[in-house]
């Protein structure tokens, strides 16, 4: 299909109205500039640090003697450091940056109280820095996803309080009665996260629950962080970016409502499936497995909604970087959920429960889905903050393909390796060390995928740096991945 006939810019009703709207938007975008760029820049720094740590972790896993004599570089410390940098440094900060910008736009009001956000970003960075430093010097709490020592957790919580109070204030100043779908998700994310974080901290450290319940609380926290914090921001962003870029309303509000509420209801009940066959009352595990299966409802409705919105506009994927990243992320959300259901079924979990497959699952959710959506949103938002367009289409393409092949290869390697590892582990006639040997070739493959992702992140960071320095293109036309002229649609620009 030829791209002609498809608007590459937002349709304008009348010149005057459009101008007024343009000016209003420009004012709003300008007001978000400092805080959002602050969140984005910090996030990019953490992304690079996290990527370097990730490569180190990946290589050490199949080369255990690599720098193992230094206490703060031992695998068991670098791994949680990597995980926490990615979760709290990169993903949370980039997600908050996008969420803040979307909030301002959707509330149709200039960003008020920017100091709250600037202070929030500062404290958040401090918290992550303290936390990662704490893990490396051996202060990890030992709870997965909550390894940050208490002194870092407190700082993070303070930082978050600032951000969320800003979000609630913004809501009070919003204009217009209609609350758009994206706002439901963002409001949910902003309100769920502090409760989740506080509940996790409280039940693990302040008034700790007994024995195995700590693990239950831990996985409940981890899964809800994945779904209700990252997932909600990711889905909300996709709901904004896809219709925005193609200039067409969401296919169905009704479907979106169903999708949102079923998502909130079912995905919050997942988590215990990761403890399958562990020392817990069976009902807890079963409830979570059932909830995981039920998340197919929001997956189907959200997927259908996006698909129908995109219907007929898929050729635009050829041009718009934002759309390409966002649609890839939205599709990955479906893949992530389906894999999640598969590996939670008892008959499968028996094999993959203690293997690399669960790492594949986390990466599908945090990278293939969330991070790709956020990359997409950054390609949309950053030019509007710095007043320049992305300089090189080629770099965007490289970034995209390196990310896609990287995460694709990683997922395949970890899933395949995990299944084999699990199968061998369930074969007691094989010595245990053989089961770990089985997975080593796949881990080397994963390291290879890590190189691709590293390249992609450095490319993006370089490009982002150019934008920050004001070295982007000065142009009224966004940077397209492929020259639109070739298709003969200049008329629409």
């Amino acid at each position, binding site marked *: 299909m030829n791209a002609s006939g498809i608007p590459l810019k937002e349709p304008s009703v009348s010149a005057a109205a459009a101008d007024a709207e343009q000016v209003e938007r420009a004012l709003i975008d300008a007001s978000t500039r400092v805080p959002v760029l602050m969140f984005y820049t910090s996030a990019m720094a953490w992304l690079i640090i996290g990527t370097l740590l990730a490569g180190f972790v990946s290589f050490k896993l199949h080369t255990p003697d690599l720098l*193992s004599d230094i206490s703060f570089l031992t695998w068991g410390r670098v791994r949680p450091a990597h995980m926490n940098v990615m979760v709290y440094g990169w993903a949370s900060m980039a997600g908050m940056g996008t969420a803040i910008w979307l909030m301002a736009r959707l509330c149709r009001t200039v960003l008020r109280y920017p100091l709250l956000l600037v202070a929030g970003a500062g404290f958040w960075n401090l918290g992550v820095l303290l936390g990662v430093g704490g893990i490396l010097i051996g202060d990890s709490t030992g709870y997965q996803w909550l390894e940050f020592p208490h002194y870092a957790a407190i700082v993070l919580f303070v930082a978050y309080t600032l951000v969320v109070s800003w979000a609630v204030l913004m809501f009070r100043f919003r204009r217009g009665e209609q609350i758009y779908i994206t706002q439901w998700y963002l409001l949910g994310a902003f309100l769920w996260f502090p409760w989740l974080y506080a509940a996790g901290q409280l039940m693990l450290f302040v008034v700790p629950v007994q024995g*195995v319940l700590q693990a239950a609380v831990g996985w409940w926290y981890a899964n809800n962080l994945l779904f*209700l914090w990252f997932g909600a921001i990711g889905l909300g962003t996709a709901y904004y970016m896809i219709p925005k870029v193609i200039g067409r309303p969401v296919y169905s509000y009704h479907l979106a409502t169903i999708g949102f509420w079923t998502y909130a209801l079912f995905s919050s009940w997942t988590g215990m499936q990761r403890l399958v066959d562990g020392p817990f009352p069976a009902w807890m595990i079963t409830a979570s497995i059932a909830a995981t299966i039920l998340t197919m409802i929001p997956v189907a409705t959200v997927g259908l909604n996006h698909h129908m919105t995109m219907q007929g506009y898929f050729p635009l994927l050829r041009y718009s970087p934002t759309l390409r990243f966002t649609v890839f992320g939205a599709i990955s959300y479906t893949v992530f959920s389906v894999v999640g259901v598969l590996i939670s079924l008892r008959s499968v979990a028996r094999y993959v429960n203690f293997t690399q497959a669960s790492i594949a699952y986390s990466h599908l959710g945090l990278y293939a889905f969330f991070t790709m959506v956020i990359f997409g949103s950054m390609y949309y938002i950053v030019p509007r903050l710095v007043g320049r367009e992305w300089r090189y289409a080629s770099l965007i393409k490289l970034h995209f393909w390196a990310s896609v092949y990287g995460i694709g290869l990683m997922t395949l390697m970890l899933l395949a390796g995990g299944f084999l590892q699990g199968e061998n582990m369930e074969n007691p006639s094989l010595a245990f060390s053989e089961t770990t040997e089985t997975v080593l070739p796949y881990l080397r493959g994963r390291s290879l995928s890590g190189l691709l992702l590293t390249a992609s992140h450095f490319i993006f960071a370089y490009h982002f740096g150019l934008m920050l320095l004001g070295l982007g293109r000065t142009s009224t036309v966004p940077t397209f991945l492929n020259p639109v002229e070739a298709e003969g649609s200049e008329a629409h620009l």
Partner: protein
Amino acid sequence: MKGLAPLFLGIFGTFAFSWVGLTLIPNWQIGHLDPQMEEDGSDAYPQPQSGMVERGAHVYAANGCIYCHSQQVRADYAADDIERKWGGRRSAPRDYIFERPVFLGKMRMGQDLSNIGARVPAEQENAPPAGAPSPAASAAPQGGAPTPGAAPPGANPSPPANAGSPPPKATASPPPAGSPPAAAGSPAAPSASPAPSAPAAQSPKAPPASPSPSAVAKASPAASPSPPAGSPGTSRGASPSSPPPKAPTGPAPKAPLASPSPSAIANASPGGMTSVSPGTPAAGAWPVQTTGEPPMYSAAWQHVHLYSPRSINADSNMPSYRFLYQVRRISDVPSDEALKLTGSQAPPEGWEIVPTYDAKCLVAYLISLNQSHPLKEVRSAAPAASPPAAPGK
């Protein structure tokens, strides 16, 4: 969607539902378990951690052991953990009531460790670091069944190394000190049989049958002077201020210790030291016990393994934890604690490698990991469930 109220209520409600459902209700259901004990209050299990063991748990957390090692045994119908000899029964919530943090784990790039302490060989019992306590506690019930006590309680010649340390506040009330019997004689039984089949002998079913021996074993610490130093009763409480064992005490470097199954603990008796030694060679496919190394799973072995995993198992994928050890010049006489390393790993002449305090705590913690004590609410695996088919673990 119009209006904020429904949105807020919905966001609040869905999350509250999950919070109550997945954390508060389970907390009400299994969040306040007590240790299991006999009617007279003896034989309490599990016991609170303390001292070095507790510190060891933090070393375990700090260095991320949890990212490769799980600590849970799944039921025999759900997985083959029991067949792999990772435990005699599935883990239950009660096993973990004193654990903080709890290290259930999510990955097995390394073995499951829930019963690593149960595999400590008999000699270990004589060696001090209270780390070794747990086996004793659990050994009794099991060992009791098969063999009548033969070993004289006081027979143990080894120094009560932990004498200096405060006696564990074991549960055992009345120390029937005189009779660490049942377990004592038993070493012969398990040791005689090759490891694989051993689990049968140790069948966790035995316990109810023999309440008394268990009480005995526990009691021993109280009776401090005579009893085997190694059996300070408490499974977690071992208060270990003393150094780690100088592993290969006696002539028994290659005993039956290979048996990864809890059966090993049956050996946990004073008499074991001598009677066991010449026993069968290790039967497990891994790790292969070679002469000259400390007995497998003993504290000394754990130290060598932590320091240089591949000197014990060339296929191991575990990183070395050398930073927990100190290389120092031998000042006067070589330290008892020095690692027995051979080949390229060995320190240069005149130097020795000794564990730091953290390393000792970590090993004490590892040795305290033991879920072989039967629980009333858990069906123990039938002896038949572990055919000798699987020497590997």
